[in-house]
């Protein structure tokens, strides 16, 4: 339980400190300190177990399907890192409390910092690698927030985004790697993974997995060529830099190398990939560091270089090298944290970090200068300081392969890097604290507040203690940490300051003298640097890459999505045709089946030909809109005749009614629209479209042919035999509509109602005003409502209503039904509007159409619901034959009520649409009419 709390307390603490900051600026600093101590306290109970060579594992189930548990692990390595994170963390908290200025939001800062701390602890304490990855990405996210803390600054934003892109991207690669690793081992638990090193390296996925994992590690620890994000992350407040780049963020990368060392190492792939990356980073970064002008920049590149060193050590793939790596992790964390803090003090007290402006600060801040000098000496690897010890172990390990061809290369490179390190350390101290007297600094420098120096003092003291008394101080923790890395007994190593004149000592001596010489001869070197230096920084390369990415994305997106309907339809058609063609090619079936076909008669042939000609005529003349509309009417009539021919009277009735209403609606719209479509498609486009049309038509034609020539069996017989006994109607189509598939019809009238509502909403507040003359400029006829039409149309109304009731009532047994009846009623009423005008008709038809629609829907739905009373499912119909005196027998069916609902919806919707469209136009002249329809 306690390990879970160690990782989670900082997250809860983050929220806590953000909250308490409202009570006082410094509350959050205190809060953060308490939270950190609390985490440390929860860590404490398990420490003894670790020193007793035990691995503490605590586990909670989370997602079994994924093999993802909340599992925490404390071994030497985890312990070392936890202590570094928490220990340096508390120093940073103290330091930052003085560093941050009045304008900075303390609550936000400490909240982010706590989140970051929790994420780091999560990484190092994870037993499950997926869980490790979760915390890994959380460090990317929280570091994004920390780096962009001063969000109004451009370099903060861009630095943070760059860090997020690189480390977050690396995390994604790591995710891939971990998934493969988990699959190889059959578990995401480190205990399993660390025990199955052999099977891992023999697995065919080893190399891709390794590359993915290393991508994660290398991006995080800023290894070449992913190093460029780190210097840009220096835009963060210095406490953040001190934390992220000494003990945490970048160390996560090397932590991962250490963590997976037993599982992944021991192969040539590991050796070459890790050591070469480390070596390149070590050299290149150390080289650049020599020429950096920004104090933090110098430290940043130095950090990269030291991380390269650690990486190189892991890559060397010997147990002792791993021990050295762990040792250097500790040392680097301590001296780098103190150096960053010192740099922060300088920045804080002088207002600049530019080494071209800083000089002679010794006289203003001797105390700080002394501290910085100790830390820098440690960084340079000067004897008696902790850095020296691990560096010498490093030098010794480089000689491991000296007998192999090219074996001299590694010690040579290591020495060269040592020279660079001495040179930049020297430069840091000399330029800033000596080298004359400062001029023109933004602030007059002086020593910082007492408590700002305390963390530095503590760290520097550790540098010295470890440097001089390694066996007493660092040995125990180094021992358990190294055994945590190796997961086996740690090889013998001697942490003495002096081992006699061995080759490593000679390398150190060369590095020290060479470094001093290089610093003295820095001017010619910087000329050289001017030629190649910037190329190694990669920042502009990254930026142009990102710019290119956005540019290409923009181009492709614009190419794909021109926001053109024609393009969409074209693509859709081509897609359909591709699917259709491929499915046929795949199985090369016989197109024609063996059903007995119907003979063709001359009348059908002629009517079909006429229909086809009318259809083609519509297409050819489609630019003359009114003409094409008239032709469309003919085609619709033809289709209705086809329905009649093929035994579908109900369809013919429906088609005819719908056809006319559609034409009326189109005419209403056409009044406002242009009368002619311009000829604007190119010949090519038209040919292309014609080709597609012919293709689609042929496809559908063949499909029809193929289906029609095949015999089939359907569920239709059931309907035929149950229509009368079960549905109470002889018109099977109608019984299907109101009974067998009444649910479809319920949906269908909802669609209709929705169309009405949608159109009403669309026209809402839309002002339409038509022209006073037709397209030829001829004024409209004065006679708005020709008398002869008006009087006969009025006469037709009762007649049409009679017909519509007839159609409604007989629908169940003979062609007809609610829908057709509804359309007839609607059309009869529309006729009144047409013949007598909106105002005239509106005063005579005062029913609210919304109510009619609603009533229709409710009647239909409630008819369906009524069956619940009889414990039947929704829409179960019932019917009975009543025998009344005089009238005789007649049928009552619940389906009729349902059909009435249909009828009402149709009437309501049709009238709503047509009349409202007419009204909206009227609206542009007068304002009083509209109220009535609502």
């Amino acid at each position, binding site marked *: 339980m306690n390990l879970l709390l160690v990782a989670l307390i900082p997250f809860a603490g983050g929220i806590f400190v953000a909250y308490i900051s409202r009570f006082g600026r410094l509350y959050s600093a205190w809060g953060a300190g308490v939270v950190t101590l609390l985490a440390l306290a929860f860590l404490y109970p398990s420490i003894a177990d670790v020193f007793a060579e035990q691995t503490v594992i605590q586990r909670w189930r989370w997602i079994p399907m994924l093999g993802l548990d909340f599992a925490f692990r404390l071994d030497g390595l985890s312990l070392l890192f936890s202590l570094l994170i928490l220990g340096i963390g508390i120093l940073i908290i103290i330091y930052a409390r003085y560093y941050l200025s009045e304008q900075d939001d303390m609550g936000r800062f400490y909240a982010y910092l706590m989140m970051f701390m929790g994420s780091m602890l999560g990484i190092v304490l994870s037993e499950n690698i997926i869980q490790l990855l979760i915390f890994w990405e959380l460090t990317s996210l929280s570091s994004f927030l920390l780096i962009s803390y001063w969000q109004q600054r451009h370099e903060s934003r861009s630095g943070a985004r760059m860090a997020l892109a690189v480390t*977050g991207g690396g995390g994604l690669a790591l995710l891939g790697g971990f998934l493969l690793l988990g699959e190889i081992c059959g578990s995401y638990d480190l205990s399993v993974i660390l025990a199955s090193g052999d099977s891992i390296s023999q697995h065919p996925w080893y190399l*891709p997995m390794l590359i993915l994992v290393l991508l994660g590690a290398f991006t995080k620890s800023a290894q070449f060529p992913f190093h460029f994000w780190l210097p840009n992350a220096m835009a963060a407040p210095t406490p953040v830099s001190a934390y992220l780049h000494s003990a945490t963020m970048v160390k996560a990368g090397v932590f991962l190398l250490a963590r997976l060392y037993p599982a992944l190492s021991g192969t040539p792939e590991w050796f070459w990939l890790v050591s070469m990356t480390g070596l390149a980073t070590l050299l290149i970064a150390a080289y650049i560091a020599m020429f950096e002008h920004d104090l933090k920049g110098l430290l940043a590149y130095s950090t990269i270089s030291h991380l390269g060193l650690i990486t190189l050590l892991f890559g060397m793939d010997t147990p002792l090298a791993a021990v050295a790596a762990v040792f250097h992790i500790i040392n680097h964390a301590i001296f780098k944290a103190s150096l960053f803090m010192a740099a922060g003090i300088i920045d804080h007290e002088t207002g600049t970090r530019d080494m071209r402006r800083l000089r002679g600060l010794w006289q203003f801040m001797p105390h700080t200068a002394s501290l910085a000098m100790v830390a820098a000496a440690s960084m340079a690897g000067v004897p008696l300081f902790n850095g020296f010890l691990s560096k010498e172990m490093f030098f010794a390990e480089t000689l491991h392969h000296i007998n192999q061809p090219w074996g001299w290369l590694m010690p040579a490179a290591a020495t060269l890097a040592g020279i660079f390190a001495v040179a930049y350390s020297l430069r840091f101290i000399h330029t800033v604290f000596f080298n004359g007297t400062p001029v023109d600094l933004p602030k007059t420098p002086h020593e910082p507040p007492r408590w700002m120096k305390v963390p530095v003092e503590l760290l520097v003291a550790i540098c010295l203690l470890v440097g001089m008394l390694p066996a007493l101080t660092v040995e125990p923790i180094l021992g358990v940490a190294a055994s945590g890395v190796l997961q086996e007994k740690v090889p013998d190593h001697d942490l003495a300051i002096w081992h006699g004149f061995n080759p490593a000592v000679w390398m150190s001596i060369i590095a020290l003298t060479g470094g001093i010489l290089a610093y003295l001869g820095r001017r010619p070197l910087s000329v050289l640097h001017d030629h190649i230096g910037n190329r190694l920084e990669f920042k502009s390369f990254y930026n142009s890459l990102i710019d290119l990415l956005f540019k290409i994305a923009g181009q492709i997106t614009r190419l794909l999505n021109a926001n053109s309907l024609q393009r969409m339809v074209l*693509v859709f058609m081509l897609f359909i045709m591709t699917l259709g063609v491929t*499915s046929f090619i795949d199985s090369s079936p016989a197109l024609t089946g063996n059903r007995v076909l119907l003979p063709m008669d001359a009348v059908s042939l002629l009517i079909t030909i006429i229909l086809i000609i009318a259809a083609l005529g519509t297409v050819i003349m489609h630019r003359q809109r009114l003409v094409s509309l008239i032709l469309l009417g003919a085609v619709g009539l033809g289709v209705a005749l086809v329905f009649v021919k093929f035994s579908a009277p109900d369809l013919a009735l429906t088609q005819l009614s719908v056809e006319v209403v559609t034409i009326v609606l189109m005419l209403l719209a056409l009044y406002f629209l242009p009368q002619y479509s311009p000829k604007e498609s190119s010949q090519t486009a038209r040919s292309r479209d014609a080709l597609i049309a012919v293709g689609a038509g042929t496809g559908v034609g063949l499909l029809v042919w193929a289906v029609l020539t095949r015999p089939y069996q359907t569920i239709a017989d059931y309907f035929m035999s149950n229509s009368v006994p079960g549905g109470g109607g002889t018109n099977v189509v109608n019984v299907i509509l109101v009974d067998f598939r009444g649910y479809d019809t319920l949906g269908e009238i909802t669609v209709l109602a929705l169309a009405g509502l949608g159109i009403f909403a669309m026209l809402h507040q839309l002002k339409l005003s038509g022209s006073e003359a037709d397209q030829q400029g001829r004024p409209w006829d004065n006679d708005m409502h020709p008398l002869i039409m008006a009087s006969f149309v009025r006469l037709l109304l009762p007649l049409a209503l009679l017909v519509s009731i007839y159609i409604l009532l007989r629908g169940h047994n003979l062609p007809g039904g609610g829908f057709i009846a509804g359309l007839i009623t609607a059309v009869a009423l529309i006729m009144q509007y047409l013949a007598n005008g909106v105002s005239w008709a509106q005063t005579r038809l005062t029913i609210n159409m919304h109510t009619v629609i609603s009533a229709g*829907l409710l009647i239909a739905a409630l008819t369906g619901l009524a069956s619940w009373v009889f414990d039947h499912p929704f829409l179960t119909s019932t019917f009975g034959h009543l025998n009344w005196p005089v009238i005789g027998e007649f049928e009552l069916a619940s389906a009729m009520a349902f059909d009435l609902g249909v009828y009402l919806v149709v009437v309501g919707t049709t009238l709503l649409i047509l009349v409202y469209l007419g009204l909206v136009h009227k609206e542009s002249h007068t304002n009083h009419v509209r109220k009535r329809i609502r």
Partner: protein
Amino acid sequence: MISHIAILPVICPLLLGALLLLLQKQSLQTVRAVSVVSVSILVVLTGYLLDIVNEGEILVYELGNWPPPFGIVLVADRLAAWMLLITSLVSLFALLYAIQGTDSDGPHFHALFQLQLFGLNGAFLTGDLFNLFVFFEILLLASYGLLLHGGGRLRTMAGLHFVIINLVGSTLFLFAVGTLYGLLGTLNMADLAVKAASAADEDVALIRTAGLLLFAVFALKAALLPLYLWLPAAYAYTTAPVAALFAIMTKVGAYSILRIYTLIFGSQAGSVADLIAPWLLPLALATLIAGVLGVLASTHLRQQIAYLVVASIGTLLIAFGINTHTSIAAGLFYLPHSTFAAAAFFLLADIVATRRSEMSDRFEPGPVIAYHRITGTLFFIVAILIAGLPPLSGFVGKLLILQAAIPHAALPWIMGAMLITSLLTIIALARSGSMLFYRAQLPQTPHTTTNNETGSQQKLTSGFSSLAIVVCLLALCVALTIGAGTVSEFTLATANQLLQPEGYVQSVLGTAR
């Protein structure tokens, strides 16, 4: 006493929709209250339904008391109940956001909203292919109405494209259904599954054609490449609550793909088995990439979210395209996540756009907005969710999909595409976020004049409840993350149910295949 629970999620919104039409003259407050209460009840109902079917039983509701395959049946299995619950949850929050004021931009918002739910729920529950078409039309027409709600040039144009392309899609749907009926003589999905599996050899090619045509229809609704072109404008230019509700709309296409191509054309379907296997995965991968390229190319936030929806559809269909128990389970976990996250993002984008007044949601530096801290934090969280970064549900979802992809032959492609697109999403969202929140100029004068005091105060209060709705949606995602164990167990059970269609067929037809 027979149980009507399976039909309640359909009937309630229908009755409510009709009722709200009657109530249209009542005060807006009444309409809002009725609407919210009914959707809340729907949440409870669908939750209860899920609880029932989670026992493994498949509820079959025979409408009109006609036995299948002759009458229409509703089939509530785990998948259907899952979709229903997700729908009702997302619609509840969309509705809560809408009643902050969007609903009064035009008439009939609430009736359209209820009928939209009627269409969605009906589509998820139906066990009949033609009835699926009908409910597609209902939900489409309702969505047309909602999409156009409020009006405006860009919205109208996007709506026009959306409507026309979907009309073409509906026509295609009918062609496909017709062909299937012409060959197999039935419409009931279970019955179709039985008949398709035992189809005569000479009919197989035609059935496959029909199946693929149907796939094109669903691909259009789901916005699968190359048929996603309608989506960006439609989603970017509609009102926020509608866009949030539309987060579920593409999922209807995905649902249908899952349903039809496991049940009728699944791996046990004889000579029509695994019909879309060669198509789905490659297209889904391409959709993901195209979506993310769009995310990078976007010039304003809502457009970016629309493309994120495209990308999420790609991801979802990758999961379905892998077509194993675990991948489908992963997809079904990812589905609610992407729905809630997209909904939250659309709402948040609207809050940002409103606060930035004339700058709207364009990626240009603008003024510091009210509650910028909490808004920025929410943006950060939503971005994490959408990009699939740890620790939230987006990560869990992607992880489940990736893990399920491991045995698949196309693993390098799937993993490469998913990881790289995640990175690109991070890059794009980091840029958008820093543009909208970090580059904001601080207000010149912090104090408003006394005249404006009450007005701005009121606006801030209402702004706070808008933010609270976003927070609730995010809380759903967090709940999904914490309960990932339970949820993934459920989705795995769902996937198992889907990949053993005999159970479905047995429940509907009463006989085994």
